[in-house]
C-alpha cells in the first residue's frame, strides 16, 4: 500500500510549517525527508503519523483517506527522535506495549517482543532497564517496538541523530536492511544528507515547508534542480556560468573555460541565471601557473584519508575545494586549478 500526502498545508498561527506539500512512498520504499531545521520535515512526518491534522490537503494509505484518523488507529510504527521509550517499563514491556494495547495475551506478546528484540540484535535484553541501555541499544529497542506491531507504514524522526559517528555508520546499513525487509512504506526525517544518501531510495528536500526537489540520491547529487538544492547537498562550489545548452562557460580571473553540463529534469533549454557545480573530485590541482587554468592560492589544506582536499582562493572572489592524490602543495602556495572532463551539473538559480 502506498502512503501519500496530497497538497498538505499546516499553519501554526502566522507561521506556515508545511506549504502545499505532496509526497508519495510506495510499499518497501524508503523516502527521506531532508531539510534544515524549521523546514517542516518533522511536521510533515507528524501529519503522516496523525499527530497533526493538516489545515488543507489529505493523507491517504492505499488510496483510503486517513487524514482524520487518530494516531492510535492508524497502525503505523513510529521511531521518535529521542526514542520516547517508557522509562518505567523494562525493555520487553516497552516493545510489547503496542501488542498490549491490542489486547494480545501476556505470554504471546512477550514472546513476540523477544523475537522482535532478537531481530534487531538484542537477544536477552528483555528484562533490562531503559536507563541501562546505550544510545544505539535504545535506538534498536525503539525500532523493535515499532516493528512488532506489524505496522502498515514506518515513520522515523531523525533515527540516527543521537548516535556517535562510528555507530552511526554501522546503523545506516542495518537500518536500511531492516526497513527493506519489512516491505511497508517507510518515511524518515533527517537533517543529514549523508544519512539520506546512505539509506533512502528517494529523497524529498524541503525548505520553509515547500518541496524543493524530490528524486533518487543520484538525481539530487548530479542534477540539483536549483542553487538551494546544490548548496544543501554540499560538496562543491557553485560558480556563475553562461548557459549554452549542452555546455556552459565559466570565467574566472579572465580565464574562460567551456564545460559540458548535465541539465536537471524539466529545466528550460536556456537558463537565464545559471551556475555550474564544481565538485572537488572533478577538479585538478597543479603547482605553479598552468596555461588555461584558473590561478589561485591555497588557503587551507586538509588530509581526508587517501586524498588531500585543498581550499583554493581564485580570482573574482571565487573559492573552490579541490581533491588531490599527491598532496604535495602547501598552504599559501600559488597553484592552478583546472576542470577535469565533465559533465558538470548545471544549476538554475
Amino acid at each position, binding site marked *: 500500500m502506498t502512503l501519500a500526502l496530497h497538497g498538505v498545508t499546516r499553519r501554526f498561527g502566522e507561521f506556515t510549517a508545511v506549504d502545499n506539500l505532496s509526497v508519495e512512498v510506495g510499499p518497501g520504499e524508503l523516502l527521506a525527508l531532508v531539510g534544515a531545521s524549521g523546514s517542516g520535515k518533522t511536521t510533515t512526518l507528524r501529519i503522516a*503519523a*496523525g*499527530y497533526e491534522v493538516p489545515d488543507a490537503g489529505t493523507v491517504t494509505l492505499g488510496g483510503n483517506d486517513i487524514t482524520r484518523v*487518530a*494516531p*492510535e*488507529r*492508524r*497502525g*503505523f*510504527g*513510529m521511531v*521518535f*527522535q*529521542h526514542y*520516547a*521509550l*517508557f*522509562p*518505567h517499563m523494562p525493555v520487553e514491556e516497552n516493545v510489547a*506495549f*503496542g501488542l*498490549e*494495547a*491490542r489486547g494480545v495475551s501476556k505470554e504471546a506478546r512477550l514472546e513476540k517482543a523477544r523475537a522482535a528484540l532478537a531481530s534487531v540484535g538484542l537477544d536477552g535484553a528483555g528484562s533490562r*532497564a*531503559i*536507563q541501562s541501555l546505550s544510545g544505539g541499544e535504545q535506538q534498536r529497542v525503539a525500532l523493535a*517496538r515499532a516493528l512488532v*506491531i506489524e505496522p502498515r507504514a514506518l515513520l522515523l524522526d531523525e533515527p540516527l541523530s543521537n548516535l556517535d559517528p562510528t555507530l552511526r555508520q554501522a546503523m545506516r546499513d542495518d537500518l536500511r536492511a531492516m526497513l527493506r525487509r519489512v516491505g511497508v512504506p517507510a518515511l524518515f526525517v533527517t537533517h543529514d544528507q549523508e544519512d539520506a544518501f546512505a539509506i533512502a531510495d528517494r529523497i524529498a528536500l524541503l525548505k520553509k515547508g515547500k518541496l524543493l526537489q524530490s528524486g533518487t540520491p543520484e538525481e539530487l547529487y548530479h542534477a540539483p534542480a536549483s542553487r538551494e538544492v546544490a548548496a544543501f547537498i554540499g560538496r562543491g562550489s557553485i560558480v556563475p556560468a553562461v548557459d549554452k545548452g549542452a555546455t556552459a562557460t565559466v570565467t574566472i580571473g579572465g580565464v574562460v573555460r567551456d564545460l559540458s553540463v548535465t541539465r536537471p529534469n524539466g529545466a528550460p533549454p536556456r537558463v537565464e541565471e545559471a551556475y555550474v557545480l564544481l565538485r572537488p573530485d572533478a577538479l585538478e590541482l597543479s603547482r605553479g601557473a598552468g596555461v588555461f587554468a584558473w590561478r589561485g592560492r591555497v588557503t587551507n589544506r586538509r588530509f581526508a584519508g587517501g586524498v588531500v582536499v585543498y581550499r583554493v582562493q581564485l580570482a573574482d572572489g571565487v573559492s573552490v575545494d579541490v581533491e588531490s592524490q599527491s598532496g604535495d602543495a602547501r598552504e599559501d602556495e600559488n597553484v592552478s586549478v583546472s576542470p577535469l572532463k565533465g559533465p558538470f551539473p548545471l544549476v538554475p538559480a
Partner: protein
Amino acid sequence: MKRRFRRENWLIALPVIALLLWTVVYPNAAVIAGSFENGLGHWREFAASPADREALWTTLIISVASVFASLAIGVPLAFLLGRFEFPGRRLLRAVATLPAALPPLVGVIAFLFLYGESGVITRVVQRAFGMAEAPWRLKGVGAIVFVHAYTMYVYVFLFVSAGLERFDATLDEAASGLGASTWQRLRRVTLPLLMPAVAGSMLLVFMNALGSFSAPYVFGGGLRVLSTQILASKTNGAMGLAYVETTVLALSAVAGLALFRWLDRKRRYTLASKGGRGRRIIRSRRIQILMSVASAVIVIALVLPHLMVILVSFARDGVWTTQVLPPEYTLENYRRLFSESELWRPITNSVSMALIATTGNLVVCFIAAYLIVFRRFAGRGLLELLVALPWAIPATAIALGLAATFNRNDLLSGRILLVGTFWILPLAYFIRDIPLVASAVESSLRQMDASLEDAARGLGASWLMTMRRVILPAARPGLVAGGLLAAVTAVGEFVASVVLYTHANRPISMEILAQLRALAFGTAAAYSVLLILLVLLMTLAARSVEERLA
C-alpha cells in the same frame, strides 16, 4: 593541597555540626531518654490509657484521610489546569495556590467563620431550608480533614502540575502511535510516570497532617490527637507521659517517611521534558459553559476564607450573634491594634522573632549547603542528615524537646535556660525552618558548575574572595527564596509557639487564639488580616531584593 583542604573542611563543618547536634538531636534525645526515666513506667501508662490509644489512631486516620482528600482535589485540578484551555483557566490557576498563603491558624478560623455552627454558609443553608438547627457541626475528624484538604491539596496540586509540565509529551504520542487508547495511556504511561510527584506530595501532606495542631485544637471538640495530647499532658505537669506521646508522634513520622521511601524505592528515572505538550482547547460550547461555572464555584470556594477573614475584621466585637452576616462594621478593631501597646506587642514580637530565626537560618544553612554540595569529607553524610532531620519531626515534638532541654542552666550537660525567655521561640522557629532554607540553597548551588570554585582559586582568589564573588552569588536565589519561606512560616507560627510561649513574647498566632477564646472575633480577624498583609509584604520585599540584585 588535599590535606590543607581536609583541615579546612572540618574547621568550617565542626561548628555547624556541633550546633545542629546541640539544638536538633540533643533535645529529641532528651525526650526519648525522658520517656524512659522510670524504666517502662511511662510507656505502660501510655499503653494503658484509652485516651492515648484513641489519640494515636485518630492521628493516623486523620493523616491518611487528609492525604486522600488532598489527592482527590489536587490531582484532577492539576490535570484540568495543565491539560485544558477553557474560559476562566487563568483566574482559577491564579487562586489555586491561595490556601497555602493562609497561616495555619488563620485558615482554621476562616473556616470557623464560614462553616462553623454560627458560620455564614451554615446559616445560609439553615435559613434556606428552614431548619431548626445547624445542618452540620464543624467538629471531629470530618471537620479536621475538611480543613486539611483545603490547605494541603496545594502540595499535591503543585507537585502534579510540575510533573505534568516536565512530562515528555512524546511518550504520550508514542503510546498513542502504538495503538493505546486515551484510558490505556493514562493508566499505563501518564499516571505511572507521575507517581514520583504524587508520592512526594502524599508524603508532604501526611507529615503535615500528622503534626497538625491548629485544626484539631480548634475543631477537635472532645477528639484527641497526639499533638493536642502532648500539650495537655505538659499543661497537667505529666511530663513523662508527654515525652512518650512525643516519641510516639515522632516515630509515626519517621515510620511514614520510611514507608514512602520504601514504596518509591524502585524508581530511578527522572522526567526530562523536551517541551511539554500544549493545552487542549475546549471548543464545545456546552462544556465551555460547564467548565466556566465549575471553575467559578471553585474560585469562590478558594477565596471565600480570605474574604471572610477580611469581612469579620471590620465587624464590631460582641454584636454578631444570630445574624447570617455581622450586623455592624467598624474600624475600631484596627484602631485598637495600632494604638494599644498590649495589642501591638504580639506584632512586634512575631516580626522580631521571625527576623532573628531567619537570619540564623540564612547563615547556618548557607554554610551547611555549601559543605554538602561542594565538599567531600567524612562528616558530610551526617551533616545532610542533621539538616533534613527537623523536617521529619513534627513541630510539637520539636517544641517539647526544647522545653525538656533548655529549661535550666546546666552547662556541663549542655543545657542553658531559655524556656520562659524571649529566645526560646526564635530558636524553635530556627530549627523548624532549617530544612526549608537548606534545601533551597542547596538546589541553587547545585545549578552552579562545581569547577567554578576551582577556577576562581586557580586564578589566585583567596577563599574569602571565592566565597564572596563566586559562591554567594550562586546561592543568592536560594537564600532569598528560602529566607522568604522561613520568615513567612515563622511570623505565623503556631504549633511550636503554643507549647513554648510566655505572655511577654506571645506571637500573633497566640493572640489570635486568645481573642477567639474571648469571643472577640473582630479583633482576632484583624490580627489575621495583619498577618496576611505581613506575609504579602515579605513576599514583595523578597521579590524586590531579588530584582535589585539580579
